[in-house]
């Protein structure tokens, strides 16, 4: 079962020629054939192209290539359907892109290919990354591998489910308000949202440009560090990427967390938090204390305003970004008598309900007479939220919280109540508004049904080494990351 292993385990086996990249790729494809009918993590995948890349990797290995220069040599990595991969379809989980084929690679895809990874598959997602359940896809609902009557989280639900079900070794997702961390928590894998500006977004279809970041889903923390190092760095094609040196993240995983201060925000342990999730996180805090971390109480007083702030800023930015889908240059076109009618009909037919809801809300908060009351005020509250974090980080090296207030909910449970769906992002949203980094990792299970619980660690801007170090120390003192959904394990 090669597909169950981690990048670091496989790298050794590939280097020793115990296994070939073709065998590894084949084991992922077999797993997809066996389980994807039940979970629908993939919108599509091209098996022949994936095997051809595996053969190329095997050739590189036999001609002496090593992971020193090609850290992902022969590792199958699947991609969220919002990132451009040259000559592959790109739909963003939407009908509006029609039969779009990407003419170029996103920077992160170039980086994966330069690291000799096998880049394959289009992973399902909420349309244009708008949602928390992967129910808003024009290509059908993705299901949680731990319980197929439940959602995998979102918007990167396919990316989380595919890693949790061992259909790939790692995957890429994007996180605008929690879309990497929340599905990682609900599917029981590791999901990292880098600091704003850490990873180039060239070739990512923009949702909310002041919040979006690309990050990895992996089976453990060491793999997350390896992936982050490959993905990070300034890019002249993304003017928001930051010229900050890229450290060797894996070198930070030394288990030395003695004396590190972990901030526990009192505002995060109130109403709506499931008792079993709270118990799981409390136990993780105790464990980290045992490992030598110091727990300090902190306050993030504007937490209660984060969801409202986010849904004004994110929808405003989305209404501008998604104006490009107008039926003129690519994708679906529904004809009209004049351009305005063509735009309206195309967008009316091509966008799903949640995307329409958000574009219309964003248009409203930016419209004449309402801009100051909504958008400008939200940007000011964003400053207050960011200041809360900067102040908290004077007392703490990292902040510890649940990733999501509940374990995975039922398919259909919140799909008719957008506000309830939005409130499920309460613990992840502030991180994007503040522009800091965050990671989610498994910290236990609910009893019945048995569903994963996620622990979130938030770090200072460009503080990824610290949160990876803490996450790794915790992970290595538990066995949660070795658990697999029964559906994926059964042969």
């Amino acid at each position, binding site marked *: 079962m090669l597909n169950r292993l981690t990048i670091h385990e496989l790298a050794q086996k590939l280097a020793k020629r115990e296994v070939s990249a073709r065998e590894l790729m084949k084991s992922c494809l077999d797993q997809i054939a066996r389980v994807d009918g039940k979970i629908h993590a993939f919108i599509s995948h091209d098996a022949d192209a994936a095997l051809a890349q595996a053969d190329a990797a095997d050739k590189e290995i036999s001609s002496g290539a090593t992971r020193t220069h090609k850290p992902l040599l022969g590792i199958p990595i699947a991609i969220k359907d919002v990132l451009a991969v040259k000559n592959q379809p790109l739909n963003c989980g939407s009908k509006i892109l029609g039969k779009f084929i990407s003419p170029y690679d996103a920077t992160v895809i170039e980086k994966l290919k330069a690291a000799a990874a096998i880049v394959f598959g289009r992973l399902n997602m909420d349309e244009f990354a708008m949602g928390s359940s992967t129910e808003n896809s024009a290509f059908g609902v993705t299901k949680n591998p731990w319980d197929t009557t439940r959602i995998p989280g979102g918007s990167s639900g396919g990316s989380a489910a595919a890693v949790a079900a061992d259909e790939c070794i790692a995957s890429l997702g994007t996180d605008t308000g929690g879309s990497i961390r929340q599905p990682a928590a609900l599917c029981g894998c590791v999901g990292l949202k880098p600091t704003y500006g850490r990873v180039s977004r060239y070739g990512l279809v923009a949702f909310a440009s002041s919040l979006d970041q690309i990050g990895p889903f992996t089976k453990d923390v060491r793999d997350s560090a390896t992936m982050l190092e490959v993905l990070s760095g300034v890019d002249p094609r993304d003017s928001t990427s930051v010229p900050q040196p890229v450290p060797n993240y894996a070198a930070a995983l030394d288990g030395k967390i003695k004396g590190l201060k972990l901030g526990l925000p009192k505002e995060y342990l109130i109403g709506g938090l499931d008792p079993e999730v709270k118990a799981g996180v409390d136990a993780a805090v105790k464990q980290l204390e045992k490992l030598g971390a110091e727990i300090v109480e902190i306050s993030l007083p504007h937490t209660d305003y984060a969801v409202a702030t986010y849904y004004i800023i994110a929808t405003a930015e989305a209404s501008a970004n998604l104006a490009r889908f107008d039926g003129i240059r690519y994708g679906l076109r529904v004809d009209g008598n004049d351009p305005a009618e063509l735009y309206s009909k195309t967008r009316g037919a091509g966008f799903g*309900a949640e995307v329409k809801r958000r574009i219309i809300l964003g248009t409203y908060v930016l419209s004449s007479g309402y801009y100051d009351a909504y958008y400008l005020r939200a940007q000011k509250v964003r*400053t207050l939220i960011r200041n809360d974090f900067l102040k908290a980080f004077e007392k703490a090296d990292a902040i510890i919280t649940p990733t999501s207030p509940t374990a995975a909910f039922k398919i259909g449970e919140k799909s008719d109540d957008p506000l309830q769906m939005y409130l499920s992002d309460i613990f992840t949203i502030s991180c994007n508004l503040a522009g800091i980094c965050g990671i989610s990792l498994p910290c236990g299970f609910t009893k019945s049904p048995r569903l994963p619980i996620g622990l979130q660690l938030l770090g200072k801007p460009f503080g990824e080494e610290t949160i990876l170090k803490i996450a790794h120390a915790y992970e290595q003192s538990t066995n949660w990351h070795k658990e697999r959904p029964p559906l994926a394990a059964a042969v």
Partner: protein
Amino acid sequence: MAEAQFDIKYIAHLARIALAPDEEKKLAAQLGNILNYVEKLKELDVAGVEPTAHAVPMVNVTRADEIRPSLPHDEALRNAPAQANGLFIVPKIVE
């Protein structure tokens, strides 16, 4: 109340999204709810607070004004719903 102010037909027109009548009704109700929820931001005193547009304060990122490789013409047109003579075809704009 926010709900009463919200003219769904007008905003959908601004957003260039054609809505069916039942969609219009449902969206107006849902957006009314969401707007009532975001009213809570008015509880905060934001006098003197600077707005944050970007979390990382980067300004005026420029590059040399030089010709660089760009998408070839046929690649740019590859996904067009209607094209001819190397151009996008659009409905008539001027009479």
